[in-house]
């Protein structure tokens, strides 16, 4: 109840014309930043940071967070329309979003993505409001073994997805781990796989790989197939938006599960990217229509989007309460807090309740503003698909390279994009799945660090992963999920259900 009255005070801070105007501006800027691949929320927010030096901290954080929401929404747009994720966390949205758009249902796909994203975000804020003190304490229980268990769970829930052969999946994942290894190693401090090339010291950015594999790879393929995008005849009408809204209740199980996964990953902090992958993997596994995933299944859009946004939102909590950022963007904002003269950490809630609760209230309003704004842009974005390929194709190439350049402002990355584009093309030609490579690149070094830290702590004993209830539970669930296909096959054989598919619903 105390939280509730605090929240009301927060609303009185956030609900001024000035702040609403800031939110609108932030969201629009964010959408723009999110749509451009590579530019992304962390870059966008750090570009905007200098502008906030002269603002008061509350207005400043409202501007930055609104931009973050906008970027998260914008990132999904290009995933769906062009198979080019604008944000790392929207990679999983491409799996079903793009096929659905190709079927001519771009409006449906976009609306569905934005709505589930909005619901995910609101769920995240609700969790922050209701459980802030409890959740902050819970996050403190996490150490390296727990982190590793969470990453392991993410990999486990994702294994076996897609129709590719297990061998090809493993090859793709191992390549991803290899790319993630390049650069300076946190644990030993030495350089790996850099071959004395100075540009490789910083490692290979995951964003560069995504832009190349998806953006350039997709374009190469399109060119080969005859210079046109399929599904150009996208129906663009506001009525389609309303119709999609009506279908949303059908996905309530997926929505709920994805929101929970998202909050969990945002707080622990596995981050929005891991959340969206895990959520997609689980949605596919526990859906009756698991076989339809990857071919334009609506639930395959709902799951990653809802998880992505609830993770992005709830990642703000560990930042405010503990001073650990749950995502790259949160890290940038934390830097902002310090420059504005605030110390992120447990005392912030006590010393500056107006700031904390003003921010939380602005998350409610900001996300509503964002959903309304992006829904209004759906017909506009969907009609982009009507532009002939000979015009939009080169534009995408330019945007991809500009995006790649902004990641590190280095020309070396442009060559990397090109190389990854070729890899993406070859992968698609030979029917190797790209997703495991991407997932391994995002989480590979984190999982490795967490594993090796655990080993140092435990002096090399694997028992550390079952040393307390928390880590033991996560690990066990992970192992079960990994073995699930085998288990499910065994169960259905024993129960005599030969004719049924081995996908069993958990709830």
């Amino acid at each position, binding site marked *: 109840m105390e939280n509730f009255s605090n929240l009301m005070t927060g609303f009185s801070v956030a609900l001024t014309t000035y702040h609403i105007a800031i939110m609108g501006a932030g969201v629009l800027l964010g959408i723009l930043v999110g749509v451009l691949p590579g530019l992304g929320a*962390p*870059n966008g927010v*750090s*570009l905007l*940071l*200098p502008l906030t*030096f*002269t603002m008061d901290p509350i207005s400043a954080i409202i501007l930055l967070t609104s931009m973050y929401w906008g970027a998260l929404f914008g990132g999904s747009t290009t995933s769906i329309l062009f198979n080019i994720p604008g944000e790392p966390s929207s990679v999983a949205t491409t799996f079903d979003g793009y096929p659905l758009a190709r079927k001519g249902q771009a409006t449906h796909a976009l609306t569905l993505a934005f709505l589930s994203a909005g619901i995910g975000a609101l769920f995240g804020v609700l969790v922050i409001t209701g459980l802030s003190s409890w959740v902050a304490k819970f*996050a*403190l*229980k*996490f*150490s*390296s073994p727990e982190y590793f268990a969470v990453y392991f769970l993410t990999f486990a829930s994702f294994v076996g997805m897609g129709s590719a052969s297990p061998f090809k999946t493993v090859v793709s994942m191992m390549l991803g781990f290899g790319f993630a290894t390049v*650069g*300076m*190693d*946190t*644990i*030993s*401090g*030495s*350089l790996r796989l850099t071959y*004395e*090339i*100075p*540009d490789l*010291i*910083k*490692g290979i950015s995951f964003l560069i790989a995504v832009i190349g594999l998806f953006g350039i790879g997709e374009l190469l393929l399109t060119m080969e197939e005859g210079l046109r995008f399929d599904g150009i005849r996208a129906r663009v009408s506001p009525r389609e938006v309303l119709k999609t809204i009506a279908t949303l209740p059908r996905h309530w199980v997926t929505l709920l599960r994805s929101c929970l996964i998202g909050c969990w990953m945002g707080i622990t902090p596995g981050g929005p990217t891991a959340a969206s992958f895990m959520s997609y993997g689980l949605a596919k596994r526990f859906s009756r229509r698991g076989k339809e995933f990857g071919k334009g299944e609506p639930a395959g859009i709902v799951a990653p989007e809802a998880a992505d946004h609830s993770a992005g939102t709830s990642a703000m909590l560990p930042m405010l309460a*503990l*001073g*650990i*950022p749950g995502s*790259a963007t949160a*890290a*940038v*904002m*934390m*830097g902002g807090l*310090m*420059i504005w*003269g605030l*110390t*992120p*950490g*447990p*005392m*912030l809630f006590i010393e500056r309740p107006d700031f904390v609760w003003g921010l939380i209230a602005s998350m409610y309003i900001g996300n509503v503003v964002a959903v309304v704004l992006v829904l209004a842009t759906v017909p506009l974005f969907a009609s982009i698909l009507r532009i002939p390929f000979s015009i939009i194709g080169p534009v995408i190439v330019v945007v991809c390279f*500009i995006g790649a*350049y*902004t990641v*590190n*402002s280095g020309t070396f990355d442009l060559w990397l994009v090109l190389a990854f584009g070729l890899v993406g093309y070859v992968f698609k030609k030979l029917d190797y799945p790209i997703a495991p490579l991407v997932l391994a690149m995002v989480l590979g070094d984190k999982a490795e*660090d967490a594993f090796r*830290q655990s080993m*140092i*702590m435990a*002096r090399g004993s694997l028992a550390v992963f079952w040393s307390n209830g928390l880590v033991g539970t996560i690990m066990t669930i992970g192992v079960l999920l990994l073995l699930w296909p085998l288990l499910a096959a065994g169960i259905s054989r024993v129960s005599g259900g030969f004719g049924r598919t081995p996908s069993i619903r958990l709830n």
Partner: protein
Amino acid sequence: MNSKMSIAAAVCAVIFGATAAQAEWKPTKPVEFVVTSGAGGGTDTFARTIQSIIAKNNLMEAPVVVVNKGGGSGAEGYVYGAGNAGNPYKLIFGTNNQYLLPYVAKLGYKPADMVPVASMALDEFLIWVNAEAPYKDIKDFVDAAKKPEGLKMGGSQSKDTDQTLVSIVQNATGAKFTYIPFKSGGEAAVQLAGAHIDANVNNPNENFGQWKAGMVRPLCVFSANRMAAGAKVAGDMSWSDIPTCKEGGLNVENYQMPRTVWLPAGVPDDAVKFFVDVLTKAQQTPEWKSYIERTSQTDRFLTGDEMRSFVKADEEKAVQVFKKEGWAVQ
């Protein structure tokens, strides 16, 4: 905007390049602040604080663009600086890793690829333990670490300032520590608050929030003198109530990390002078004082020969440790 500005800067460079670099040097296009840490890190806050001071006080006409190049413990930024030899529009912000990194890893730059502009502050190191830990003072702590199982200490990165300090303490006392490298001091702080490690050697700013909230507490500071007095932080303790490690009987007197600013080698002397002037003015503003106070650093502004001799002494001390631990690659 970042990229647009650097593109704009590049265009300007082509157009105005010929007229630049004349007597009484002054920047005629945006100046890039290259931060050798990720966004949100200590060096990032340092550089952006300077940026905001310059903007508020109109210390420079040319606009400032901050770029984060923190890959490879900051090596990315220094390599970038080295690759921009003679370009006075790249100001590189870092710590002592500018001259220490090349000792522990083979990187694509030499410390001499950059010229020192200023060292603006000294960040302190403290030994922190969890608030519930049984150690009353540094002596208790060292005694506990001498037991066969030793103690676990966390820190930021590997073979960097934190691990070097842990090795120094180890050599001075004969105690045994298991060092666990994390990505940042912030991570080490949270791990300590959650009692997953026994101690860390964080800078004041990295553990400030947790101390205030009573989750961790400091045992001693690695400085010749106690830190400057300030408001009470936790209970009736303020920064000046923390004993120095020397007082507590730990024979390590001084360990501090400079916040440094560099320019690529080969820039005109006038350009160095210009930025020394700007930074000298910046560190006299009330905003700088409040940054120093908030982050509990020591306000010590070094430039020119003073900075060079500081760097030399600091380097010698660290290299001894690197050699003893077998980290040195050259």
